[in-house]
């Protein structure tokens, strides 16, 4: 729940940043605003996957280590 809240907050911030911020890049090709916006939206969705993956690996590590601790204790 906390993560979802965090992500929706991040998404809003990302859109606000896109609307009001501008920074000149060093590249010489046209990065095209449509594709930059699309990458940010894509990145936000991938961010959910990233955090899901991170939470999953934390949970797995937690259970693996507790299991390991239990078996070594016995």
């Amino acid at each position, binding site marked *: 729940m906390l993560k979802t809240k965090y992500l929706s907050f991040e998404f809003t911030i*990302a859109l606000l*940043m*896109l*609307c*009001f*911020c*501008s*920074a*000149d*890049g060093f*590249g*010489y*090709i*046209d*990065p*095209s*605003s*449509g*594709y*930059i*916006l*699309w*990458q*940010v939206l*894509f*990145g936000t969705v*991938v*961010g959910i*996957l*990233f955090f899901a*993956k991170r939470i999953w690996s934390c949970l797995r590590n937690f259970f693996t280590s507790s299991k390991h601790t239990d078996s070594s204790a016995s």
Partner: protein
Amino acid sequence: MNLLPHNKSLRSLSLRDPSGTLFEIGTQLIRQIHSSSSVDWNQIKRSPTLKKFTEKGLFVRSWEISDTDISNLLPELSHKNKNDIKDIYLGHEKINFVNYPSEWAPEMLREAGLLTLDLATQLSAENLGLKDATPFNVLFSGGLPVFVDVLSVEKRDPHNSLWLAYSQFSKTFINPLLAYQHLGQPLYKTFLLSREGLTATDFYTQISFLKKLHPSLFTKITVPALLELWSDKKLRNHPNTEKLMDPERAQFTLKFLLNNLKKSISQLNFNHKQQKTQFNNYMSGESPYSHLQFENKERLVKKWLTLHSKNSVLDVGCNDGHFSRIAASLGRRVVAIDSEVELISKTWSMSRISHPTLLPLVVNIANPSPASGWRNQEHRSFLDRTQGQFDCVLMLALVHHLLTTESILLQYIIELAKELTTEHVIIEWVSPSDPMFEHLKKGRDYTHLTAQVFEQECLKHFAIIEKETLPGNTRTLYCLKKLFLT
């Protein structure tokens, strides 16, 4: 290394990237890396990914040229080296026959795209990336794509998840391939119109409402086009091109994007229009040759190629590349051209592994690729690139097509053959009484074009070394040697 200080014909080949310049000096390719980028290059050149790609022949082989050699070769440029930070000069391996995306089959553009994505993905793990992603960074050496723009590799901010070249990759790889698949628009139409490819907004305006919702077009064309149109109207500034986050997440996001692109173009399936072409497949049931005729033709071509070709062969009107493969099997470097995209796709797919010295290209010899790009000097015309390149030219079952379909006079066809070869031409004369010629002439009278008339035209520029008429008496093969008139 053999430098040629006496040869001063210097031509700049790169016009867009401010970090360096590529020169052609005589027969050599020299890349000057400006001092502003030379520090970065000294780190980039140690990349294990670049080393691996170079060893596989997928990244152009390069070597640094010493200060002494460069001051002999380019005294007018080497004075810049007196600064604290020096310019760096690289020599590059030359690709035998320069070729452009407008001449590739869609499968070749897809292969070049996959190479670009593979390189970008593997470099990202080393905090390196590609600053641009255009098919002009890739040349085909035979059937194999080679990434040739070393200065495309740059250091990447590990906190930034955006790939600035994504837009260019879409415009020059994905959109042209989707336009071929969905609109039947060949690559030469896309790239001869604009070397920057096809924008999502231009594509979007050409497709129906239902197509806009098509799963393969929705995320690749519709959404970027709508965002582009929205941002043009609503945004006062260009969106921020730095999307900073922790490096692990940035790497994950970038890798996900690149893998997604890779999956998208790998899955493209080109159902080439099954057009009923005049260039019937030799090996199909519709072949204009009887088994005996074809066997004889194959025997003759193989014999003459063995005897009279040395290094490089140009097969004009190659059809499915059957005779090009024979030349490649004899160890020759072969460029095979045909105007039919489907045939070149088939030739490339059949030959890329088994005959790696064969380069098939979509070129209509009656209207070959023009010089294009900045001042018409960025990309050389096809005929300009052929000059002095081929010691043997194959023109099999082609002359009657040029006479009828393209309405080119016989004398100009023979003149072109003379310009294309440095030594030999293997050419097939199809008489107007042949069923295929009958089919193509559509009521026009070509009875004046006899074998004697053909031979007289040939004798103006060539000596006839050998000739043989195939069973059926309507087709004759000639082996010609170019005359060097003083």
